[in-house]
């Protein structure tokens, strides 16, 4: 089982921040960053490894392909069962929260700014704890 953390946001400063936090929280050492949903989608679809699992920190307000567009796209593919999404957005609207959880891969809704303690909380959740260990497990999975 390989676990990858992806960061999708159109703002390079946000990517910088999130990358720092993910690394600092003792989680995955190499989060992969994308400045658009198109690039992220492309990456996932071309990677045909059935053993891979993806944890995506997904922004909503992006040009060309919004977070909603990304989710609409990915659920049409079987690879979506390998995907876990945390929506990370500046919106605190209840309606946006409801909309996010309507997508099967979405398990979290985080209002920016992301920080280390939030990530620590997430790491303790069952479905996400696996992402917070190193990709190479000594036991040899």
């Amino acid at each position: 089982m390989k676990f990858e953390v992806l960061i999708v946001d159109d703002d390079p400063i946000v990517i910088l921040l999130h990358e720092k936090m993910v690394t600092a929280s003792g989680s995955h050492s190499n989060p992969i960053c994308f400045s658009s949903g198109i690039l992220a989608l492309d990456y996932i679809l071309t990677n045909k490894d059935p053993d891979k699992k993806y944890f995506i920190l997904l922004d909503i307000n992006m040009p060309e392909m919004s977070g909603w567009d990304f989710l609409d796209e990915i659920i049409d593919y079987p690879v979506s069962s390998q995907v876990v999404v945390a929506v990370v957005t500046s919106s605190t609207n209840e309606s946006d929260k409801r909309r996010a959880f309507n997508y099967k891969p979405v398990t979290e809704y985080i209002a920016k700014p992301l920080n280390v303690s939030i990530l620590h909380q997430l790491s303790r959740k069952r479905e996400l704890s696996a992402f917070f260990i190193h990709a190479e497990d000594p036991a040899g999975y």
Partner: protein
Amino acid sequence: MTKDIKSYNILVIEDNPGDFILISDYLEEQFATVQIDHANNFNEARTKISLHDSNFDVILLDLSLPDKSGESLIAEMSILCRRCPVIILTGFADIEFSIKSLSQGIADYLLKDDINAFSLYKSIIYNIERKKTNLELEESEKRYSDIFHLSPQPMWIYEVESLAFLDVNTAAVASYGYSRDEFLAMTLNEILSTNHLVDTKETEFFYSGRTDGSSQGIYSYRKKSGDMIQVNVQSNVITHKGKKVKLILAIDITERLNYIRTIEMQNSKLQEIAWIQSHLVRAPLAKMMGLIDVIKNHSVSDMEKTELLVHVLDSAHEFDVLIKDIVGRTEDLQINLNEHEI
């Protein structure tokens, strides 16, 4: 026979002295308190009637007076005595004419040769009562007519089958620009726009569970000037002189609809602003918080720290720009409100 104790004021217009004495006797037989006034001819009668200002309870009239008779006498008497019943005392020869006179405003006729004290009395009492009832009915009809004609909102009546206007009130004339005569020469189609149904709730059977044929809807009507107005029409079906007609109350709601449209536009602009607030404004703020968190809690080199502080300032500026945009938009809304004077 006990006399009627109520007091009465009776005018007898009779030129034959013998007939007059007979009639007075009959009256005094039946009425305990009666004031009998006598006129020998029409002119005398006219003077007395004008003087007493219709204080007479009843007027007994002989058809053949020296200075006026027949149809012209009846006509003049009808005009003079609006509130007082007039009973003709006539001979056999004039029966047909007497019957005709009933339709000209005369209350009753009695055959001189056939009357007696009681029959005279009975006729007088009956006709006084009937006149009273008729006057009340007239007043009631006038009141309803006033309600229609003096209503501040346009009202009209049109025949259901032909759509022809049967009557319009003053407010309708003022509102639509057509004179009453012009209206009465038109049908409803001439004021309806060709695309007239804006919104209709035909409520023939469902309006409060009534089956009275009332309905309500919003229609577009055209004034004489060509201007279109939106009208809230309430109608009721009534029978008027045997025909099925609709009574319409038509309230001009054009202004009101315009206000609603303006308010709806304002609302959607406000919603736009609210959306901007919740989605766009928070973004630079959240970024600032994230940057400050990193500077504070994570080990960063001095060069990194300087770079991060630059980003903090940029975000603050971004935030400022958004705030100014929102302020600008709300100021525009205020201008719009002022223009429409809501």
